């Protein structure tokens, strides 16, 4: 895909189930129990088990890789503004990654992302800069 400023990128949807969080916990080494134990999550005041913010950012990065045909990523980041609550059921919850090319200059394309779950933004100012 040619990256041109103003281009809207096709939204990508990921389904996140409790098993995905367990897998991410094991792979990443982030064994914080708020990402797999409702008991612990609720004890610290969360509505239930929440996805690792880094897992949501990893999904956004995968969307960027798909859009850009694995372009070299120069910068990536986001604020974890709202928790993605992942129920202990077979359905899970959807995370949608939308994006647009904000600018292309000096060989750098800045992608402005919008990452939502259940209609709510879950990442604040998610952004990726790739080599264009």
């Amino acid at each position, binding site marked *: 895909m040619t990256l041109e400023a103003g281009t809207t990128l096709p939204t990508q949807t*990921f389904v996140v189930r409790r098993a*995905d969080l367990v*897998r*991410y916990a094991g*792979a*990443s*080494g*982030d*064994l*914080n*129990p*708020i990402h797999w134990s409702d008991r*612990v999550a609720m*004890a*610290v*005041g969360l509505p239930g088990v929440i996805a*690792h*913010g*880094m*897992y949501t*950012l*990893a*999904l956004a*990065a*995968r969307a960027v*890789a798909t859009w850009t045909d*694995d372009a*070299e*990523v*120069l*910068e*990536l*980041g*986001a*604020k*974890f503004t709202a928790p993605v609550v992942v129920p202990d059921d077979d359905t899970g919850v959807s995370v949608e990654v939308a994006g647009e090319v904000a600018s292309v200059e000096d060989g750098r394309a800045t992608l402005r992302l919008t990452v939502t779950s259940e209609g709510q933004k879950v990442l*604040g100012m998610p952004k*990726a800069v790739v080599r264009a």
Partner: protein
Amino acid sequence: MPVDASLVGRTYPPTRPYPVSEAKVRELAATTGADWDGGPVPPTFPILLAFEAMNAFLEAEGVELARIVHGDQKFRYERPLRVGDVLTAALTVASVRSIGGNDVIGTTSEVRDADGALVCATSATLVHRGGAA
């Protein structure tokens, strides 16, 4: 309060050298449903290093991991990671603020290769949820 402003500016010892393996890259890529086949290492990979540095910091300061919520994470890459890289991360406390009963800890971590060259600079905000701890 286990975390206070006196920690600002402190840099913790680097993590032990971590060799980037094909198996780990494939495993981490698979968490997002990707079938990694030798292409670029996913840009979130350095979180493994940053997370180990963060854990060592929390342990050194006696902070319970379950009380930490990740506020943000940003990466800036000097070059792509490669399988075979041997990496370390060193964490510096950049800021500590108290907001609404929570400690908000700004950290930066530098991920360097075996030659000491910077591969990735990453920053994270850690929110230490107050309460009965």
